[in-house]
């Protein structure tokens, strides 16, 4: 019977290995964005759509600045970057987005509506009854230093209202100048040429990142041309740097973890067979988990891989329990398995319950971790139970007396009086830490962005002006007209904030297409206040007749007309999500409180800060993770009570619960904040801690030393794998690792309390 199951299990493992090999041959798909690990916005669909649209536009944006002291070299290098971008077929070059043709087309589109289009300055002058200043402004443009106006335009628009409106549009990238077809600027003797592009692929897909960076080969370009500087900006570059760091780390961490585990096992057993049996358990566990996750999800998140890899530390526990039994009274492999069977069975069940509660959190990435871990643990358990006794040829070792004596001593410590002193010290430390506990959910601190890329981004922003931020106002109305009016009220309030430098700038659809109400008001202002000055203006200019002015009753310019496909104002489609749902994008929000307050009392206007919302969500889910922890403990309790009875069952649950309570308190003692990732670590501390407690509870008087030795080895290897995550450069992973380190150590330290 056992043979049959062992063979069936072999079949499953072979199938999994084959599937894994086949997938690897076809290239594994990894996801790298932190966002995918985290929850979806679950509130308002309009907000979600706005967030997605703005986030997608931002994440696809690529900006390059190519600088060289020699203008021709800078231009040649910029042309090369453009060429490589187009050839990569991963991005479309959008440079020249505001080229002369588009400007001209925009001018032509606005021209018939010019009497309803007034610049803020002209409008204010007319409202203030200073119409003659508008006339004077136009005349000074004509008579000033080399008048700048086109004769035909001046004849049709003697007050130059349209040019004034046009130059006040918040057109992007105002520091750049079109120099023979390339957007350029020069600073300190260096000519900078800008190339902008839109990524057509997914910025968080590893293969897109790799291919783009290889095709661009900016480093090669810089090396080939001395003094050439290339600055780049784009989510894809940040994602690539982050993914590279995570992959490097996860391979380093898993290498250290495996090496450490091997050393611990070799040192403890002084034999090779426990080592290769453990490696077999780890291998089948991780391999099957990887195959199952790929089969279930089609792709794997790098974060899931990183957490999943630390599973090695748990999977080895069961094989250690079995192998350590060799130090106990001589018995056949099957008998030795029988002695630990209950312990590892209950251990696996409770740990899998702990991991599976992760499924209750609605985070896709965590589902992957949960599936990976649960499958891995069950597979490891099956290997221990079905294969290990059959493969085991070990003999009872002669060494180990001192190790066992120490382990027994440790176990007995918890029978002695001094345990009270230890518990009091821990309680006092925990109490002191509890007062310092504080939460921090700021997502910006969780991601660790590559410092050189941040420096390049800041450099680009300094050179070309702001490149757009992720914060925005969402304006919601029953129709476009209402939304435009609401924006106009908002823009009126934001303008002083721009002047006061609380805000770098803004872009609102209403600045390009004023509401029909505003256009009618402007026409009225022009008709009533400016038209009477027309004769005088014409006389000053020496004009006897002017072409007919637009019909004052013609329909106004509407967003629908402006947003014609392929029209010159297609760029507005980023801001107009659907009729009545508009985005007012903000640049460089310096004082968020003042900017947020601008929307106070405006109907249908809401300040949106995706990072802030994300942080709020992380906070909410931090609380949910703690609830998950409670659920996890409640689900484990019936199994423990069934096995040990009410009182002893509680005693088994006590050490892991104490570890869960003390770990964050002790972390707080050194000033660390408590985040969602710490809470997730505690869920795992609980399930691993229950394992140790169960092993201790299952032991008998003559096996106690062996059991304790197995727990010591298990904790040692777990600390090696999880604890090493505390070395990660990614803040979120580091918090997770540090809490695991402390929690597992405490769970191990307190585990003998569970002994009956």
């Amino acid at each position, binding site marked *: 019977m056992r043979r049959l199951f062992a063979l069936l299990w072999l079949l499953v493992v072979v199938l999994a290995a084959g599937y894994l090999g086949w997938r690897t041959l076809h290239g594994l798909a990894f996801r790298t964005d932190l966002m995918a690990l985290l929850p979806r916005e679950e509130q308002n669909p309009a907000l979600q759509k706005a967030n997605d649209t703005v986030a997608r536009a931002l994440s696809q944006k690529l900006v390059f600045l190519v600088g060289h002291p020699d203008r021709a070299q800078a231009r040649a290098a910029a042309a090369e970057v453009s060429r490589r971008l187009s050839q990569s077929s991963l991005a479309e070059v959008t440079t020249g987005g505001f080229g002369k043709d588009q400007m001209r087309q925009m001018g032509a589109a606005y021209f018939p509506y010019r009497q309803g289009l007034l610049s803020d300055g002209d409008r204010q002058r007319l409202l203030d009854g200073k119409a003659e200043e508008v006339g*004077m402004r136009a005349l000074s*443009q*004509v*008579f*000033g*230093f080399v*008048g700048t106006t086109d004769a035909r335009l001046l004849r049709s628009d003697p007050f130059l209202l349209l040019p004034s409106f046009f130059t006040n549009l918040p057109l992007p990238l105002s520091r750049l100048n079109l*120099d*023979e077809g390339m957007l350029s*600027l020069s600073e300190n003797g260096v000519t900078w040429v800008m190339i902008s592009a839109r990524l057509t692929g997914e910025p968080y897909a590893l293969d897109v990142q790799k291919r783009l960076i290889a095709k661009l080969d900016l480093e090669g370009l810089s090396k080939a041309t001395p003094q050439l500087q290339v600055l780049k900006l784009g989510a894809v570059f940040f994602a690539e740097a982050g993914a590279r760091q995570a992959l490097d780390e996860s391979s380093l961490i898993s290498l250290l973890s495996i090496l450490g585990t091997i050393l611990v096992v070799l040192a403890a057993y002084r034999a090779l067979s426990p080592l290769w049996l453990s490696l077999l358990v780890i291998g089948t566990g991780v391999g099957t988990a990887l195959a199952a996750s790929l089969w279930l999800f089609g792709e794997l998140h790098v974060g899931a891989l990183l957490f999943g890899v630390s599973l090695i530390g748990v999977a080895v526990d069961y094989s250690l329990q079995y192998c350590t039994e060799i130090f106990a009274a001589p018995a056949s492999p099957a008998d030795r398995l029988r002695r630990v069977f209950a312990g590892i069975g209950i251990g696996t069940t409770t740990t899998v319950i702990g991991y599976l509660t992760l499924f209750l959190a609605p985070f896709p990435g965590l589902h992957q971790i949960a599936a990976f871990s649960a499958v891995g643990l069950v597979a490891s358990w099956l290997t221990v139970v079905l294969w290990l006794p059959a493969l085991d040829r070990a003999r009872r070792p002669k060494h180990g007396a001192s190790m066992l004596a120490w382990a027994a001593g440790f176990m007995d410590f918890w029978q002695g009086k001094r345990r009270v002193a230890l518990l009091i010290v821990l309680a006092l430390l925990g109490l002191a830490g509890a007062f310092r506990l504080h939460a921090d959910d700021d997502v910006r601190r969780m991601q660790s962005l590559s410092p050189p890329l941040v420096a390049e981004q800041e450099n680009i922003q300094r050179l070309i002006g702001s490149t757009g931020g992720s914060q925005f106002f969402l304006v919601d109305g029953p129709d476009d007209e209402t939304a435009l009016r609401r924006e106009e009220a908002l823009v009126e309030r934001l303008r002083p904030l721009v002047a006061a430098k609380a805000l770098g700038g803004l872009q609102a659809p209403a600045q390009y297409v004023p509401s029909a109400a505003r256009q009618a008001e402007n026409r009225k202002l022009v008709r009533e206040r400016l038209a009477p000055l027309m004769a005088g203006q014409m006389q000053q200019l020496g004009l006897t007749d002017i072409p007919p002015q637009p019909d004052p009753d013609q329909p106004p310019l509407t967003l629908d007309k402006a947003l014609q496909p392929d029209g010159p104002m297609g760029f507005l489609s980023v801001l107009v999500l659907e009729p009545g749902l508009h985005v007012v994008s903000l640049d460089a929000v310096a004082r968020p409180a003042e900017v947020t307050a601008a929307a106070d009392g405006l109907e249908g206007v809401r300040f949106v800060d995706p990072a802030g919302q994300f942080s709020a969500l992380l906070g909410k889910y931090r609380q949910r993770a703690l609830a998950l922890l409670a659920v996890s403990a409640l689900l484990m309790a019936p199994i423990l009570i069934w096995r040990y009875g009410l009182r002893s069952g509680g005693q088994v649950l006590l050490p892991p619960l104490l570890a869960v309570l003390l770990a964050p308190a002790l972390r707080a003692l050194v000033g660390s904040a408590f985040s969602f990732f710490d809470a997730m670590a505690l869920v795992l501390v609980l399930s691993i801690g229950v394992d140790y407690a169960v092993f201790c509870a299952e032991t008998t008087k003559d096996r106690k030393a062996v059991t304790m030795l197995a727990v010591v080895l298990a904790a040692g290897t777990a600390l090696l794998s999880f604890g090493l995550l505390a070395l990660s450069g990614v803040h979120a992973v580091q918090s997770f690792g540090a809490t695991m380190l402390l929690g597992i150590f405490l769970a191990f330290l307190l585990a003998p309390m569970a002994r009956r």
Partner: protein
Amino acid sequence: MLRKFAVLLLCLLPLSAQAAGPEGGLQAGQVLRGRFVQERHLQGFNAPLRSEGRFVLAVGKGLIWRAEKPFAVTTAISPAGLAQEVSGNETMRLPASRLPFLSRLYDMLGGALGGNWLALEHDFTVVKSGEAKSWRVVLTPRNGPDPMSMPFASITAKGSRFVDGVRISKPDGDYDELSFLDQTLSNDPMSPEESASLQ
């Protein structure tokens, strides 16, 4: 449209520098003052739009262009940017950050004032004729007129010691005529008022 200012300024300054003759052009700290008459010949207008006034060109500091007729409008262009005012009221101010061409202009000016024509020859074909006492230069945009960055068909300047006249022809047949009169070059510093407008 502001690029046009810049291009013109660019043209004027090295021309006067070149015209200043074998001594080596205008020196930093020197100030050129004079009167100007500007006539804009526009199609569909009864008469040319004529303005006249005074200008102050301070090497390394900037240009003050002060029209007096038909009404007072002052334009000051400096490395900091461009400002225009009408009878004490500012009607326009553009910082240099909005006029990136200005910084390139100043780079080019540095060379041009020293008699280096390369900077101009990049954008224009330069044809010189005549002699030092009566010369003529025709600048034609290398890539033809462009309504955004190079709204000229050609620029013709003539002069003797300084630039005496400039004609700017537009592609559509309009043209501007500028005459410079009573030009004097001094080494005295600018008046405090002049310095203030170039801040």
